[in-house]
């Protein structure tokens, strides 16, 4: 399933001694490499959609991959607005995608 990994590289060399760990995204188990970010681990498993937009419910994934744009925000072990592109994976990490907010949170709605 890790076909997106660049195992061999003509200049950077081969990936070696990768230690595999397990992470969970919306309850589903995935294999990650130690040293991955949440974003790279999920992408390597073919997952591109990290959340649905709060308002429009359109699918969103990474954009800048270096922490600038916050497009990759997910929930990690219960904590909100974690940048998937800056957060290293840990064994048994629980990651949840962002979901649309209920109407009362949007456009001047009240709680």
């Amino acid at each position, binding site marked *: 399933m890790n076909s997106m990994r660049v195992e061999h590289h003509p200049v950077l060399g081969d990936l070696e001694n990768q230690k595999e760990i397990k992470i969970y995204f919306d309850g589903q188990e995935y294999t990650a490499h130690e040293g991955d970010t949440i974003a790279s681990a999920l992408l390597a498993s073919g997952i591109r959609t990290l959340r649905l937009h709060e308002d429009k419910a359109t699918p969103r994934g990474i954009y800048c991959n270096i922490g*600038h744009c916050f497009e990759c925000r997910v929930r990690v072990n219960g904590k909100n607005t974690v940048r998937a592109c800056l957060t290293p994976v840990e064994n048994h990490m629980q990651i949840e995608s962002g979901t649309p907010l209920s109407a009362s949170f949007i456009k001047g709605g009240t709680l």
Partner: protein
Amino acid sequence: MIDLVVVGAGPAGLGAAIAAAEHGLQVCVVDEFVKPGGRLLGQLHEEPDGKWVNGIEEAQKLYSRAIELGVNILCGVSVYDLQKVDHGWCVYTTDEMIESKCLLLATGASETPIPIPGWTLPGVMSIGAAQVMGNVHRVKPGEKAIIIGVNVLSVAIARELQLCGVHVESILLPQPGILAGDAAQPEKMMESLLRLSHLAPSPLIRMGGKWVSPKLGARLFPKNGFKMWGIPIQLRKTALEIYGENQVEGVRIAEVSASGDVLPGTEKTVSADFVCIAGGLTPMSELASVAGCSFCYVPELGGHVPLHNEFMQTNLAGLYVAGNITGVESAKVARAQGKVAGLSVARVLKALTYGGNEKLHSAVEEVKETRKNALIQFQPGIEEARRELYGKFDETHKKTLISI
């Protein structure tokens, strides 16, 4: 209170930390990325002599040297606020607050987005995102790429993506419009590509670098573009829209005239499973603005930069800047600027011993020399623009600063 906090563990920040620690200063470097090295990590360049410069190795060298000198490096920690206090600065991080006598902002550059229809689809990312994914995390963003935006960075990274085993279908221009600005102008883009000519294996563009004016270049430019490393670079094609149901499926493109107007009836679709947007780089200076620095708009340096002098001092006491926050340039220049900043801090904290002035001035010369020999020039006229900027600084702030 420690001597120096550096925000950013890129070549500038690490270069400064090393220079400062070599003079006995106590230094802490804070960076929000997972590894030290900044944007140097993703870089992979072939020098004219055919040797590859591997950013990961370069970053490792800087990191090891800093650690050897006792520099404290915190990764995965973001700085979100700064406050001037008596004799120093409070640096608020997602970890803890750190107080220091001097503060260096070496936060680098960020990519300018070009919003085009469909750009929020998963599988659309900035060109730098793809670089980091492939070279640093070693994951391919997809199998078949279309790159929107023709500039120094996108052409260099297209090559790097190829080395990761990605098929780059083509590099083309964004749709003309206010948000794309010059990026949609074939002539402007030709001009920027000509600055890359020494890197190009293609004789067309290499000759172009010497003989063809950008105007002529864009007009003579074949409709189907030319190839660099086998990748079609299409200055006469534009991306109208990125399409796809739940992720990228392709790009709708059209032909444009030399001045960038869409030619009616030339629309077609090209399939791709990921799209990179390359809008160029701009200094990332939010923290300098939070601190209350004066700013200057300098297009040659990539946008608004904190006003500073050639010793990397800003107009605020104890606040320094180095690297791409002062203007977009290559990693080697950033590193050399870092050294100047580190020595400058050592000087102000009276840690520069015998021969200190000479050291500082030769570090300043080293920056100029490095700039002259830089493989990649992001904009023309950088040296002149800097001279003007430093002149402005001296006019307005010299009297208020500790003289050097």
